[in-house]
Structures are given as C-alpha cells and as structure tokens.
C-alpha cells in the first residue's frame, strides 16, 4: 500500500473514530461502571442505560450529544487538515499528524478523565461537568494541537522544510 493510501486510510479512521468516541464515551463509562460496581452484568447495565437515554433527570442521550460536540468539530478539522495534505510532502504530513495527535490526546484524555471522575464520584453539582466539558475542550484542543505541532516542527526541522 502506498503512502497516499495509508494517509487516506488513517485520516478516515481518525475522522470516524473521533466522532464515534465522542458520542459513545459517556455511555461506555456508565455501562462499564454499572456492570462492575452495581449489577455485575453488561446486559442489565445496557438495559439501564437505554432506559435512561431520555428519562428526566438522566438524559444520557443529551450527555452523549454534548460530549460529541467538540469531537465532531475536531473530526471535521482532521478531515480537511490531513485530507488536503499530500504524501509528497512528508515533512508537512508528519507535522500535521503530530498536531492532530496532540489535539486527540487532549480531547480523549480530558474527556475520559472527566467522565470517569463524574461517574466514580457522583455529586449533585457533578453533572455540571457535562455542560462545561465541551467548552473547556474547545479551548484546550487547539492548545494541544499547537504544543504538539511545535514539538513536531522542532523535531523535523531541516533546511528544506518550509511547512
């Protein structure tokens, strides 16, 4: 498989992976937590999850949608940013990949930590994190991208590189 095809495959995988991860992370955390801490069975935990998707006071669908918002924006960015890169310019590709990796690390890390913390330590005000998390992510994802890209740029600095 040539580099161009590999890049295309990687871009599409990251794009859809990012969307699916954003949508499903809150549900996965809740189901796994329910299965291990309360019920001991994934089937019952899944049924509980489905039951509360739209239930007042739970609205797990809304939580998933809120969490997905920054991930969807990041996915669109990845699609255009990596999708328009050409394999003929490996330095630029590697720098962009480095930036995307930084953005993904921040998005996945912060989101996973926030959902785990909220689920493991439930609190009356804890649910506020579901509203603030997307805002924080939208601010921190570009920061993660910038930092990692800077590192990538320094690492790949050559006289010929202009990206």
């Amino acid at each position, binding site marked *: 498989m040539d580099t161009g095809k590999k890049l295309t495959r990687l871009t599409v995988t990251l794009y859809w992976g990012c969307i699916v991860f954003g949508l499903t992370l809150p549900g996965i955390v809740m189901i796994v937590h329910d299965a291990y801490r309360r019920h001991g069975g994934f089937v019952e935990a899944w049924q509980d999850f489905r039951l509360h998707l739209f*239930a007042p006071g739970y609205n797990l669908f809304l939580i998933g949608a809120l969490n997905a918002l920054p991930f969807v924006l990041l996915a669109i960015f990845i699609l255009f940013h990596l999708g328009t890169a050409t394999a003929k310019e490996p330095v630029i590709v590697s720098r962009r990949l480095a930036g995307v990796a930084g953005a993904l690390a921040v998005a996945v890390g912060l989101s996973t930590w926030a959902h785990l913390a909220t689920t493991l330590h439930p609190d009356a005000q804890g649910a506020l994190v579901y509203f603030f998390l997307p805002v924080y992510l939208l601010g921190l994802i570009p920061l993660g991208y910038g930092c990692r890209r800077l590192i990538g740029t320094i690492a790949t600095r050559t006289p010929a590189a202009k990206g």
Partner: protein
Amino acid sequence: MTQKYIWLNLGGLIALLGLLGLFYWQSTGARAVPAMTDALKDPDSKVRVAAAQMLAEIGPAAKPAVPGLLNQALHDPNQYAGTTAAGALQKIDLAAARQVMAASLPALHDADVQARRNACAMMGSLGPVAKPAVPALVAALDDTSETVRMVAVGALGEIGIPATLVIPALVKALRDPAQTVRHRAVSQFAFSIPPSDAVVPHLKQLLEDKDRSVASLAKSALNSPHRQAKDRTAAYVTMLQMGNANDYTLRQLAQFGPEAAGTVPAVIPVLKHERPLNRYLAAEVLGAIGPGAREAVPALTAALQDEDAIVRESTAEALRAIGTTDAPPVTAAPK
C-alpha cells in the same frame, strides 16, 4: 485524498447527525407515548417507573397513557412504581389523579399499618390535586403507628393546600413524641413550606429539641433569608411573567394566601396555561387570596368553561372565596 472523498465523508457525518436527530425526535415528546405506554406493562418495575416519569414529563399530550398509569397507580405490586404513576397522573389528567385519590382514601382507615402508610404515600405523590384528602391525612396524624404519622406529614407537605388546614397540622406534628415525625414536619418548613410568623414560636421551641438534626432543621427554617411572603412573591411574579409558571411556585403562592394579593395580575394568565395542573393551582392561588383577588373575577368566570372538571371545580371555589355571586354550581368532580 480527493475533494470528492472529503465531501463524501462530511456527507456521512451529516447523515449520521440526521439519524440521531430523528432518533431523538421519535423518542421524545408525544411521539414517545405509545412506546412508554407499552413500557408500563414491562415486568421490570424499573422500566415501569422510568416510563411513568417520562410520561409525566410529556404532560397532557400523554393522555392516551392514562388507563395504563391508572392501572399502575392502583394495582402495581411495587409501591414506588405506583406512586410514580400517580405523580404522572397529576401532570396529565387531574380527574384521573382524583380517581386514584378516591380509590386510596379508604385504605387510610385500613387495619393494616402498611396499607395505611402506602395510602398516605399515594396521597403525597398526587400533590396538590389530593387537596380533598387533607382532612383524612390530618386525622392520620393521630395514628398509633409512627411510620403512618411520618408519611402523613410528608404527604401533607407535598399537597401543601389549603394552608389553613395543612400548616396547623404540620405545627401539631412538630410536637409529636416521635423524632422521625418531628424531623419530617420541621423539614417541610425548612425546605418547602414558608414558615409564617405564627409558626415561628413553634420552630423556636424546637431549637432545644433533644434530637440535634431536628434542632438544626428548625434553625434552617428560622434563618431562611426569604421567609417572609413579601420577599418571595417578587421573585415568583418575575417567574410567572417570564412564563416560567410551575406547580411549586403556584403552590407556594397558594400557601401565602391573602399575603400574595400583589401577584394576582401575574397569576391570571396562568388560568389559560396548557397544563391543567397549573390552571388548577392558579385558581387555588386566587381562591386562597380571597377578596383581594377581585380583579381576577372575569378571568375566573371564563375559566368556569375549562375543559377539565377539576379546574372548573377549583375555579368555582375560588369565585366563592373571593365573594362573588358569579359562581354557578358546577358538576361535582370525583372526590
């Protein structure tokens, strides 16, 4: 990656979001009623509880689910599923809620303690719609069972009206020999029922209660910064004017009675609210205010034609309390 391929993936995302939106639309509002009605028959009580809660959220549009909710409220072996269904009925169909009340009233005199306790809990879950059950609940405060008295206190707090009966009964419960009953009674004044000046001396006595949690709650009730009606009504008027009428706000205003006279202009539009519970409570507020709500007479007269029999009944009572001769006799609603 070609431009066409990029846009194809973007199109896929739009299609996915569209499908999710469709799923949300199908699963919420009146469209969810058939599925929720089916869920009321589920063998798992958790499913029945969640279905009743969702139907309550949907409100009057969930009317097709009333027979299922009635059945659950009256016959479900799981008490929580029953009270949740009753709670949903008060938001959907007041007459059906009154049916549950009428069916549960005899159990308040049952020989079995558990039956009396469950009946009290059922009345509480019906909220202000169970107003006609208040005298029976007041009588339940003399029950020999501490548990029944405690649940009766909670039910009186949840019904909340008429304040002229509920508040003296809760004051009486503040002196109950059982700590659990006193705790439940003082909680009502600390969290849901604004303690009037007449209640203050009784709360002050509880500051010396041998149970520290009761004394602490009494202190909370007394220290409430917005204990006075005048302090609260301004905020409630703002809420009503913004269209945020909810049963809690209206019930509190009904508890203030004549002191809430300044809210009449804001309460009048609620007589046309889409939710029968809010229309009912608006009539209750105006009735509790009494002669001070005279400017509401034309709106109340129009409300005598309300589609809901319980609202009509409450409206006629309000007109009588205001002291107008415009209140015609109305068909008695089920009691």
